[in-house]
């Protein structure tokens, strides 16, 4: 490759300017748990949009900050400890910082978020960021916690050590210092570039030398990363830009700089030596912070109290989901039923009245009723995550996960999947190894998600007697059993995959454990509202549409010549049977007859493949025809439904089979889409769907035939 002549200025594609809305784009960079997201929410408020990076479709959290007639775009990057990426998530952060993410502008400046109680790790990252030679401002978060721990930081001295860059101390939870930080961010694009720290002059000398002879203009920081990390697929273009001659010299320099020492180890040694020197100068004492939280933590870090505590926490979560939600669910149930009855009464016996009462209200209402349960479940998962407990669960369960070929890091995605597999699968991005990550992704959909809950709840309430066994409620016991069943199936799936298609070395485990902290109520509330909105939007669109379609299929064609001797209910049943839905159900019935399902159940199950909670809506519509739609009526109707010869449809083996089918089957288009996205291949979602559906079918078959 030759150098570009003056007439021919070659610019990498991603540096060609594109029209954009904001005046400047600032990347928000920080290590996980540095308070980055809370600060981001504080700075941008509700002016956020969550989009996707083109191609990789990882969410791109962008918020706008407006002042003085200018708009600054803040891009919240995934947390990273340094510029040497270790996981997929860190890779995204690093790619955006270097402007390598296709379709995304390189940032005009950097907002580095550093936890004041953890300057040690924070300064390691800041040191690397300064070498990027972009305008940078440091936000020192949690200064209140640092002060409470007796930690004093000399900001002026610190700034001097960091080449004179602005440093703002803030408390993101209360808003203290935010105004000053906002001004600093607005002033950022005009700031002079930071002077690199002289922490590692040898590396910088080599990088400068290589940059001076590069075929294309290169950032020194990128060359530094190439020297340390070596040539990988990710920095291939850096090598290309350097030119062939420089590439040969690069190998020699690496050898001279590092000898036998692993370059990453050298980097850590050199940079942390510098950090320790700076800390000794700017920090009044080197504390081993021992707050009351740490002391509480220490009790629960001991093997036995820790493990008992974990079981206690999980028990409280499940108890709360069922006990606390009941009053609210009863309220919604009553409201739906009386609304349906009132509408039916007002509109008379017309097709439209039937559409509104039996289709929309009965269908959508039977799903909406589970909103309280789902929100309580999400609340607990969010609280566990934000308080730092989930990381502890990961570490307490690492050993158990190791025995099935995974590591403790798979625990966080799996627990999140109890709420919903979609965020659960996205949480696998922190798992460094691809094989471990895919095994976790395929185990996650077996966890009992909040959409399975309504189906379980309905069938259990209808068919499991509410009696006590020893001192436990039988219904609760069955539900607990279903949760355990999901966990066991998921774990067995991971084990199976790790022994076959995803064979590989034991996954490593090392996890930063954040201190316990009180979750920020604002952040929790915003996440919870987001989940509620997603659920209600689904109920208002997908489930509404399915309810209407199912109603129409069940209502038409109307038959005029009904036998007048039939009672009202018998007439409704006969009408249903010869409707489109009835005919379609009868068509697929043979496939499901070995499982003991009649055409009604079969058609409901098939309708549930795009989203499993739809089943309830379909059952609600099919069974509520000609009656008010509350949960008790639905379960009474299920119990009363019979085969043509009078045998009941819902026998115990059939119900157990149906529950097994639901526990296994992958009836969720959103999960399939997210597996496709996260594995970047159709192979895994297709495999997951066939695998899970087959297990569900066979399981239901065995239960019905053998029990």
């Amino acid at each position, binding site marked *: 490759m030759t150098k570009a002549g003056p007439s021919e200025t070659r610019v990498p594609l991603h540096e060609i300017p594109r029209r954009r809305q904001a005046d400047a784009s600032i990347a928000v960079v920080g290590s996980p748990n540095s308070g980055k997201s809370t600060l981001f929410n504080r700075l941008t408020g509700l002016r956020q949009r969550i989009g996707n990076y083109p191609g990789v479709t990882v969410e791109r959290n962008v918020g706008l900050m407006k002042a003085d007639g200018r708009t600054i775009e803040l891009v919240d990057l995934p947390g990273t*400890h*340094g510029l*040497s990426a*270790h996981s997929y998530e860190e890779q995204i952060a690093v790619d955006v910082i270097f402007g390598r993410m296709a379709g995304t502008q390189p940032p005009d400046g950097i907002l580095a978020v550093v936890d004041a*109680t*953890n*300057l*040690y*790790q924070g300064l*390691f990252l800041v040191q690397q960021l300064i070498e990027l030679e972009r305008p940078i401002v440091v936000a020192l978060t949690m200064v209140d916690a640092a002060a409470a*721990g007796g930690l004093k930081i000399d900001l002026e001295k610190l700034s001097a050590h960091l080449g004179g860059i602005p440093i703002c101390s803030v408390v993101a939870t209360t808003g203290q210092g935010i105004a000053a930080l906002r001004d600093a961010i607005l002033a950022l694009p005009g700031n002079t570039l930071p002077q690199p720290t002289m922490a590692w002059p*040898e590396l910088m*000398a080599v990088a400068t030398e290589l940059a001076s002879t590069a075929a294309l203009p290169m950032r020194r920081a990128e060359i530094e990363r190439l020297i340390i990390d070596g040539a990988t697929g990710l920095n291939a273009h850096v090598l290309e830009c350097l030119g062939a001659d420089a590439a040969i010299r690069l190998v020699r320099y690496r*050898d*001279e*700089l*590092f*000898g*036998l*020492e*692993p370059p*990453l*180890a*050298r*980097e*850590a*040694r050199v940079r*942390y*030596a510098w950090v*320790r020197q700076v800390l000794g100068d700017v920090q009044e004492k*080197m*504390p*081993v*912070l021992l707050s009351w939280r*740490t002391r509480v*933590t*220490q009790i*629960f*870090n*001991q*093997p*036995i109290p*820790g*493990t008992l505590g974990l079981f206690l926490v999980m028990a409280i979560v499940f108890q709360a989901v069922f006990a606390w939600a009941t009053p609210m669910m009863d309220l919604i149930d009553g409201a739906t039923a009386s609304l349906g009855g009132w509408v039916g009464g007002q509109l008379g016996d017309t097709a439209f009245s039937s559409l509104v009462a039996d289709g929309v209200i009965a269908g959508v209402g039977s799903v909406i009723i589970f909103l309280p349960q789902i929100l309580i479940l999400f609340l607990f998962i969010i609280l566990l995550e934000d308080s730092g407990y989930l990381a502890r669960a990961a*570490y*307490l*369960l*690492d*050993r158990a996960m190791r025995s099935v070929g995974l590591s*403790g890091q798979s625990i966080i995605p799996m627990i999140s999947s109890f709420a919903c597999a979609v965020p659960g699968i996205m949480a696998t991005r922190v798992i460094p190894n691809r094989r471990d990550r895919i095994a976790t992704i395929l185990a996650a959909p077996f966890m009992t998600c909040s959409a399975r809950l309504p189906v379980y709840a309905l069938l259990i309430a209808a068919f499991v007697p509410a009696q006590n066994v020893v001192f436990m409620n039988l219904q609760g016991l069955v539900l607990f059993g279903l949760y355990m069943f999901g966990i066991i199936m998921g774990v067995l799936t991971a084990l199976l995959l790790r022994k076959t298609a995803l064979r590989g070395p034991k996954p*490593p*485990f*090392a*996890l*930063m*454990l*954040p*201190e316990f902290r009180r979750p920020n109520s604002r952040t929790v509330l915003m996440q919870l509202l987001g989940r509620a909105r997603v659920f209600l939007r689904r109920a208002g669109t997908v489930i509404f549409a399915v309810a209407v379609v199912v109603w129409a299929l069940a209502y038409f064609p109307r038959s005029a010549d009904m036998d007048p001797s039939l009672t009202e209910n018998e007439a409704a049943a006969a009408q249903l049977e010869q409707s489109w839905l009835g005919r379609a159900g009868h068509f697929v019935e043979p496939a499901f007859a070995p499982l003991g399902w009649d055409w009604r159940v079969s058609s409901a199950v098939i309708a549930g493949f795009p989203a499993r909670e739809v089943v309830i809506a379909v059952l609600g519509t099919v069974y509520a025809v000609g009656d008010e739609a509350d949960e008790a009526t639905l379960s009474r109707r299920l119990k009363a439904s019979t085969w043509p010869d009078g045998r009941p449809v819902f026998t115990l083996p059939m119900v157990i089979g149906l529950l097994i089918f639901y526990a296994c089957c992958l009836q969720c288009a959103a999960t399939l889409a997210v597996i496709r996205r996260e594995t970047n291949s159709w192979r895994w979602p297709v495999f997951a769907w066939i695998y899970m559906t087959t297990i569900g079918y066979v399981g239901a078959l065995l239960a019905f035939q053998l029990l």
Partner: protein
Amino acid sequence: MIGVAYVQATIAIINANHYHLDMANNDITLASLKNGQSGTIRSIDATDPQVQRLMVLGLVEGTQVQQAGAALGGDPMEFRFFGSGISLRREQAMRFIMTRDSGD
């Protein structure tokens, strides 16, 4: 340039050879710290990429580390350093040679 590189290569080799357990000197590894005990990292066997990752997180020579807990069976273990907590497995913890802090 060459001179500097030579000195550094020599230092690297010394570092690589420096890793050994000196039993007579009462050396311990990170894995053998008991609950509440602390020590300072003296040398590290950095051949394992996992160990290199831990070094990037701040576990380097001179860092004072305190054992702060363990899961059932004593593995993984939890350590605290400079206001951070980290959990890691015994296997990696064995790669860190410690000098026990006085007073333990």
